[in-house]
């Protein structure tokens, strides 16, 4: 079972990365100015109170023990206690996780749907008006700040022609999809700007590969050559571009969720930062990083599915 071994391998490789992630998130909190206990107690707290709370939070321990405590908190799923919500961070994050995942998924699907036909068109008709048009469109799309594009889209598609909701997040699946169309579109356009470029150039490269000539020399029609031989091989580099970019997409949800009022991890991060809810920020940072790591893992698996050559190594 080479696939199973491959997965196992990748999982084992994750261990040091995960440790590193928690370590960085932990240190991030420790270097922040301000003392959580003072923040929680406010000026009501006497020095004794603060010391007591510090002990309660484990902040009087040596750094390495604090880190172990933090790991314990993660292991129990509580991630510590939120200052603003006065509740365990873990369940709060869990609740907010799903909108973000939906957003990322939906926008990725959208990006792929946009990318494949446009990139193929641009590559096959290289140098044509269509190619130039697609290129220009995506240069502009890439340069547009997501929040600005979002505002414009809301104005156009929610106010002038009210097709999609202004903001928020629905209850049923259908409602959610409806709510997520605009935010996903904003993300998808930015993603597609990258993937169209990458897919276009790899299609062009693959089109002049020897094995495509072999396929043509077999008498296959150009459509068959394109879909059976060119696309699959071109997708590989685009998958890795997409994989690298998901880190951006996930980060970008911070802005998009705030803009569209989606109750996901990103908007929670922004409000927690402003609220100086350090344990929450710490938990969110870890969550985000783990999400990225998992998505990278998925990308790798997708890569394996497309490219038989990497299976064994």
């Amino acid at each position: 079972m080479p696939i199973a071994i491959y997965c196992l391998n990748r999982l084992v490789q994750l261990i040091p990365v995960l440790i590193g992630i928690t370590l960085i998130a932990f240190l991030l909190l420790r270097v922040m100015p301000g003392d959580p206990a003072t923040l929680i107690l406010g000026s009501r707290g006497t020095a004794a109170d603060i010391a007591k709370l510090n002990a309660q939070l484990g902040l009087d321990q040596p750094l390495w023990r604090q880190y172990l405590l933090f790991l314990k908190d993660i292991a129990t799923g509580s991630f510590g206690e939120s200052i603003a919500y006065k509740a365990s961070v873990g369940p709060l994050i869990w609740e907010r996780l799903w909108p973000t995942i939906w957003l990322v998924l939906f926008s990725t699907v959208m990006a792929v749907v946009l990318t494949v036909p446009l990139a193929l068109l641009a590559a096959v008709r290289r140098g044509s008006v269509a190619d130039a048009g697609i290129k220009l469109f995506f240069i502009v799309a890439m340069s547009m700040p997501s929040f600005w594009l979002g505002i414009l889209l809301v104005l156009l598609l929610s106010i002038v022609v009210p097709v999609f909701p202004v903001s928020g997040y629905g209850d049923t699946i259908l409602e959610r999809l409806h709510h997520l169309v605009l935010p996903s579109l904003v993300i998808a356009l930015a993603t597609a700007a990258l993937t169209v470029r990458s897919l276009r150039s790899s299609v062009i490269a693959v089109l002049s590969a020897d094995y495509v000539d072999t396929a043509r020399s077999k008498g296959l029609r150009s459509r068959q050559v394109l879909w059976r031989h060119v696309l699959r091989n071109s997708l590989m580099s685009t998958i890795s571009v997409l994989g690298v970019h998901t880190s951006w997409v996930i980060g970008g949800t911070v802005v998009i969720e705030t803009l569209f009022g989606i109750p996901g991890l990103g908007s929670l991060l922004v409000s927690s930062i402003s609220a100086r809810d350090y344990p929450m920020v710490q938990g969110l940072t870890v969550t985000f990083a783990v999400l990225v790591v998992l998505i990278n893992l998925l990308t790798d698996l997708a890569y394996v599915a497309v490219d038989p050559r990497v299976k064994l190594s």
Partner: protein
Amino acid sequence: KTLRVGVSNDALSMDPIASSDNPSIMTQLLIYDQLVHPSKDGTKLEPGLAESWKVSADGKEYRFTLRSNAKFSNGRTVTAADVVYSLKRAAGEKSQWGRFFRPITSYEIVDDRTVVMKLDQPFTPMLNNLALFSASILPAALMEEQGEKFFDKPVGAGPFVLEQWNRGAKQVFTRNSNYWKEGKPAIDGAELQIIGEDNSRVLKLKAGELDAIVGVPFNQVASLKSDNSLNVGIAPVFRAELVQLNTSKKPFDDERIRRALNYAVDKDALVKGILRGNGRVATSSLPVMAYHNDDLKPYPYDVAKAKSLLQEAGYSGGLKLTLLVPSGSVTHRQVASAIQANLREAGVAVELQTIEASSMFSTTKAGNYEMALSYTTSDTIDPDQLVGFTAVNPERANAFHTQWKDARVNELYELERRTLDGPDRGKMFQEIESRVHDGAPFIFLYNQAETFASRKNVEGFQVLPTSNYSLEDVTVK
């Protein structure tokens, strides 16, 4: 029918004794009920869970008779025991509002529907305090049983039941069918959607995704008014906009500086330019409510005066200050920019620091600030609350976290609370107000009206003088 209301901030807690932020308070007022209520016009108190009450002539004994049909949402009757439990809890150690109820020294449960409270000495704001959200009556037995868990799924005697709470997203309420007021609420349920950005709220209302919103940016009031599908309301509320000055820090320990700052801000321009006229310039930290001191004149806009005061205080070389600005509110952002521009002219450089609105209070409370743009609203119709909150030190908030201290104010405060309601008590408030005005622990900005808007098919949606919105009279067509 469900009413969808857009609000700007989410509640933090459902525990009435642990809340001091408006979003929490407003939600609690929907799900809990109190013995008495302020009337809708903010001039007197009305019966709540108590159908009647009697105060002894010496002001030391209060006797309440509960309604026979007062029930919690789970169907249990509200009893005297619940009242005693809740008020004792509100006066307890853990309560942030303990001082409001500690004057009650003993309780007597006469029967299930009658409770008597005794005070050592007269305490005039007592009845008003019992109208506070923190005096909400909770089901004693259930709370004992559930402990803190109770607030995950709170049970109250108010018009609505909190069905679902997606933090940061929305609160969903259903009608409390056990509510004592006949035929109320008129709607089946309500949904408070948390939409931080003012603009999104307005757009969602326009797009019909919301039925009502509170906090319409003033610059949009006119354009919303011209929209036929909407009703726009402007409610005078007990509210004062201020810049808190942390007098425990330099240079705010110097009264001249504080006064100079008051002179340096062009409040008329703020009211005209930003509020679009929906408000008036403030004279002190107290809103325009009962016993307001009409003789006080606002600090005029006088840059020269400000400069000379600064010079006098030894800061002629310019000053660098930071101002905390709550995020989300457009008005605050605009005001902050305007203040910044104004102060620049007086030679004071201001750095703006945006901060999540819900953490504003705890930040200033912790004393980690120089100036903070903020406001106060009264939860009662009696000035006592805000005097205690914004002027007295030491008190609950130490003069709204400015740490300003005035012995005479403290003295008057003690006195006022023992004086029966009437003109004499009014005079005391007026003196307090003028002392605050002179001491200037704040930059007094303005008293703004609360703006709200609803779609035409919504009737009865309004904001009360205490800044909360009552939904029990709302109907949706």
